[in-house]
């Protein structure tokens, strides 16, 4: 039994108090508010660390605990407690969220130093941390949903943080609305759970999942997948993530790379026992993961916006995690493992991108970067390490996590291992290409910008258009320090956690022990193929973007590239498939409402009015008439009784 279980509520309360203070004290806390935010986040990390150390000190079977603070909802059949689920899975997330979160808080102190609303920014960040921790610590789907909505709110507020610029506000709204679609899935899933299992807490639902009808579990599984797709930007609810890059870069790093977008994976892994009772839903999850994996990778190849390229990469990497989660218990641990390593290296890459933008006057167009390695050495090295990690080059951390997913994708019978395995394999190659493209376009090759020293507005000979004037400089230590720490994680985390399958065993109390299955191809062949594809992809990118001249405007390209540049027409598809029919539907409903419903009611009201007028004229004021009505009424009643009963009886 863990001693520190009762500390769990403080994990949520601490950042929540931070957020409340920052919002309530207001402008008075402008001067020190950001440090309060950092303090709240760090304190939460320390609390989490204490619980983690305690958990490591007890036997594996004692590592799962629920701390119930109070009864939350108690109405008839619905009983929900305010309970906190503390186990290896939730603690993995707690450490990721608070550790990366604290680093990003620190980074933001410098990154947002010129912003008038820095305090509000930190309030939202703290709010996000609190909601995210509630999401992963909740012991019921309903409490999880509170956190789920909380992170959605924080995400909305932070994407649109600079809402004086209209596209940012639009992006925030887009993310919010698309997330609502997923949320409906979670709500409907909870209704089904309540109807099927009589409760929404994990113990009840997951404990009796295999006893339930398979049709029901499949429905619940698919609804949970819908929720996960909304939150984790998976097909078909992926379109918001690219636009979400409108938020400040630390937000992109924390929320839209490391933590919130992975909440869908958490939800599915947490619901593991339920999904195992629904093999069809699992297959759909794997398919969605595989498709998104390719979708994100293809889009990532064509993006010139450094943040959007990274966002596409995030989408693709979460596709890997979903694929693993859809493969059943054999994949859960690797899904979470990849989630963890991805959290480190992708956050590091985003912070690096932020540092580059900081140096380049907030420009995000990689076609105007180039040759920055010498000017931004720390950024280049940390991003380089993150780059190698995401490529899956041994011994960087991505190698251990992604390679395992590719391996388990090849496990199984029939067509599945071949399809999923091939997709995962090809995805690794494309990942290598677009991430190398990003790295080379930014740090290598020729400078596609100018400095005043080099003769003011210089010319880039090839295209003849004017190169922008920039003064690249390395970021302050407050920004580089978190990047360095994350880079160290990108390098070593995978190796440390993989040694002796440590991480897999660590998660076993939650995910259960998975039997080892042999892939359909020998492991050495899979690893070799992966590495060959990675090297090929990287080499292609090197030739195209480091050796050859990079045009500063997107060159004419084949149809696929043009489609990838506009996110494979995702917005057009959404508009055509959803918005247009939706608009037609609402218009016709409004029309029907006006012509049919309103007219009907107005007619009815008119009828009531006319009838009332007639009744009123009967109310003449003459007593004789009143008395006659009384007597006549008596006759009418007798007549009614005679007609109804007398007739019926005879």
């Amino acid at each position, binding site marked *: 039994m863990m001693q520190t279980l009762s500390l769990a509520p403080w994990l949520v309360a601490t950042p929540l108090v931070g957020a409340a203070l920052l919002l309530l004290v207001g402008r008075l806390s402008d001067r020190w508010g950001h440090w309060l935010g950092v303090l709240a986040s760090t304190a939460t990390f320390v609390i989490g660390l204490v619980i983690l150390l305690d958990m490591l000190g007890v036997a594996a079977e004692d590592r799962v605990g629920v701390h119930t603070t109070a009864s939350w909802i108690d109405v008839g059949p619905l009983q929900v407690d305010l309970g906190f689920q503390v186990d290896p899975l939730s603690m993995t997330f707690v450490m990721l969220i608070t550790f990366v979160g604290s680093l990003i808080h620190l980074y933001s102190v410098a990154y947002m130093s010129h912003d008038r609303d820095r305090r509000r920014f930190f309030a939202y960040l703290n709010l996000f941390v609190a909601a995210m921790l509630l999401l992963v610590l909740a012991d019921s789907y309903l409490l999880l949903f509170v956190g789920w909505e909380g992170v959605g709110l924080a995400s909305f507020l932070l994407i649109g943080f600079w809402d004086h610029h209209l596209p940012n506000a639009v992006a925030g709204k887009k993310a919010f609305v698309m997330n609502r679609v997923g949320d409906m899935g979670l709500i409907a899933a909870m209704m089904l759970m309540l109807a099927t299992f009589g409760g929404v807490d994990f113990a009840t639902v997951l404990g009796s999942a295999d006893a339930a009808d398979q049709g029901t579990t499949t429905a619940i599984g698919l609804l949970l997948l819908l929720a996960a797709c909304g939150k984790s930007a998976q097909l078909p609810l992926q379109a918001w993530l690219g636009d979400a890059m409108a938020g400040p870069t630390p937000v992109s790093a924390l929320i839209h790379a490391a933590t919130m977008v992975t909440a869908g994976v958490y939800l599915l892994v947490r619901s593991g026992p339920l999904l195992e009772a629904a093999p069809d839903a699992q297959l759909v999850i794997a398919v969605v993961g595989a498709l998104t994996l390719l979708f994100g990778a293809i889009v990532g190849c064509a993006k010139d916006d450094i943040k959007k390229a990274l966002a596409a990469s995030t989408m693709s990497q979460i596709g890997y995690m979903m694929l693993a989660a859809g493969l059943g218990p054999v994949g859960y641990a690797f899904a979470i493992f990849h989630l963890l390593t991805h959290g480190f290296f992708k956050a590091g890459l985003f912070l690096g991108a932020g540092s580059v933008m900081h140096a380049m006057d907030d420009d995000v167009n990689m076609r105007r970067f180039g040759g920055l390695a010498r000017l931004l050495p720390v950024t280049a090295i940390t991003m380089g390490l993150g780059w190698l990690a995401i490529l899956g080059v041994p011994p960087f951390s991505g190698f251990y996590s992604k390679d395992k997913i590719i391996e388990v994708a090849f496990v199984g019978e029939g067509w599945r291992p071949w399809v999923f395995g091939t997709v995962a394999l090809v995805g690794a190659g494309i990942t290598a290409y677009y991430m190398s493209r990003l790295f080379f376009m930014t740090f290598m090759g020729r400078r596609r910008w100018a400095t005043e020293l080099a003769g003011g507005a210089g010319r880039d000979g090839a295209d003849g258009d004017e190169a922008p004037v920039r003064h690249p400089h390395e970021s302050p230590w407050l920004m580089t320090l978190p990047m360095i720490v994350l880079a160290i994680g990108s390098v070593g985390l995978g190796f440390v956690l993989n040694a002796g399958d440590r991480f897999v065993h660590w998660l076993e109390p939650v995910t259960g022990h998975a039997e080892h299955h042999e892939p359909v191809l020998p492991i050495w062949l899979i690893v070799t193929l992966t590495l060959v594809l990675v090297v090929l992809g990287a080499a292609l990118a090197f030739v195209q973007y480091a050796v050859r001249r990079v045009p500063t405007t997107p060159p004419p390209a084949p149809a696929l590239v043009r489609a990838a540049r506009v996110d494979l027409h995702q917005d057009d598809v959404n508009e055509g498939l959803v918005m247009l029919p939706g608009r037609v539907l609402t218009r016709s409903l409004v029309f029907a409402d006006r012509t049919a419903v309103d007219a009907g009611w107005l007619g009815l009201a008119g009828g009531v009015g006319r009838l009332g007028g007639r*009744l*009123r004229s009967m109310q*003449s004021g003459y007593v004789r*008439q009143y008395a006659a009505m*009384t007597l006549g009424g008596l006759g009418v009643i*007798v007549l009614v009784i005679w007609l109804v*009963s007398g007739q019926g009886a005879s």
Partner: protein
Amino acid sequence: MIEFEAPVIDWAVLTPVLVVLAAGVVGVLIEAFVPDRGRRTTQIVLTLAALTGSLVSVVLLWDRVTTEGYAFVVDGTFLLTPFTLGIQAVVAVLAVLGVLVIADRTRTGQDAFAPTAAAVPGTTYEDAAREAGLQQTEIYPLVLFATGGMLLFPATDNLIVLFIALEVLSLPLYVLCATARRRRLLSQEAAFKYFLLGSFASAIMLFGIALVYGFAGTVSLEGALFVLVHPESQVLEMMPSLVIAGVLLITVGLLFKIGAAPFHTWTPDVYQGAPTPITGFMAACVKAAAVGALVRVVFTLAAGLDEPLRRDLEVGLWAVAILTMLIGTVAGAVQTDVKRMLAYSSIAHAGFLAVAFVGFSETGAGAVLFYVLAYGLATLGAFAVATLVREQDADGVVLGEATHLSQWAGLARRSPWLAAAFSLFLLSMAGIPLTAGFIAKFGVFSAAVAAGAWPLAVLGVLASAVAVFFYVRLIVLMVLTPPTEESEHPEHVEDGAEPAAAGTSRADDAAPADDAAPADDAAPATGTLTAARATLARASVVVVASRGPATVAIVLCAVGVVLLGVVPQVALDWAAQAATFRPLQP
């Protein structure tokens, strides 16, 4: 020589009624002996004390009656069941609140009653009485007598006592209706109509009692039923239709009193013409008492009759319920006068109450108890608010009540609290959740559904939906419509909805009866509707401050409406406990 055996009378069970009637007698003596100055105060204190005493004795009797099932005096002449006691409690509570409104003189220093109600309107005698500052404190004993009748009304098995109770409660009300300080002609007209039609209904009822007696040889309702179902004991053989006609006529007399259609015709005219505090008192207390008596009679009949006759009774109640809900809501929707609108609302509520009768279940009786309390609080509060919204002439002299709907436009801006309270009462009458009215309607309709009368419940819900229209319209008028626009053009609201023929007698009387626009202006006395409207348009609307009692009553009603709506369980438990009757003796 006939040996006379003195009956054993259990005086204790009579206390709730006796206290009130005795206080009424004392009140008459006070009129004779207490000097002018202290008379009004003494009367108010006595009235409130008597009503409170009655309430206390009801509470004291509670345990005994609920444990024993019933209490009995002289062969059913006085019969106290838990249900009767419940009705008595409701009547006593509502009467206390009603008296508070009656006693309020507002900051104008005038109560709602004529200095001398006997004076012919517009005479010098009347002017003299007014200048002398006379006041009519007899209203308090009258209220006590009426209340005594109401307490007795549901508490008897003896049809003669039932009739006496009816008259004891009605006669003071006829007088009270005629005592309005303003619009005297309208008031007297209302009283006279009420008297004529009330007598008519009493006669119908008495005729019914005579038929029952003629058939069964007894004036005990239960006795008559016994005879009906045991043919061997019949005095007049082969004529059971006599007793059926008899109970039908008795029921009609009671339906008249609760204002159920088609016996409702008196309600709008009387409610409009009576002094507003009396209207509130009547609407709340008389309704409760008459419903109590009706439930007692109807439920006893249902328990005693055999199946086909019981079915006939049910059909009759269905017809009455449907007709009443329909007329109350539909006619209510086209009213332009606040008091008339509330009168039709009262009719509609009689219909909703009748819905709970079908099935003759104890659930239904409990729902009825809760309903009369909820409705009584709301309607009493609403009429209390109506006493405070007044007209004012160009010199700033406060006139009578501004009852035209258009004059209530924008009230929320001038008196937000008053308008909020009034809105609350209207919402409760409409049956909006979190108010008492919702729980009450829910109880009534679910009782009907439980009895299998779901079409009636559906009709009830539909009628409620129509009724929401005219309640909410008034709220919209008070809150959203700017005052000047509406009060300068009252015709706007009429919108041609009122045909010229409708209510001519009312409208013709309304103008001259306004005694603050004195008789020196002869034109309005014979004026047309248009002239009356012109008068309306000239007068501005003002909200007079209460001297306290009315405010207390309004606040208590509002609190009650909210409490019964938000935490109804205590009252529901109480109503369920009270909803038991004395089983018929074999």
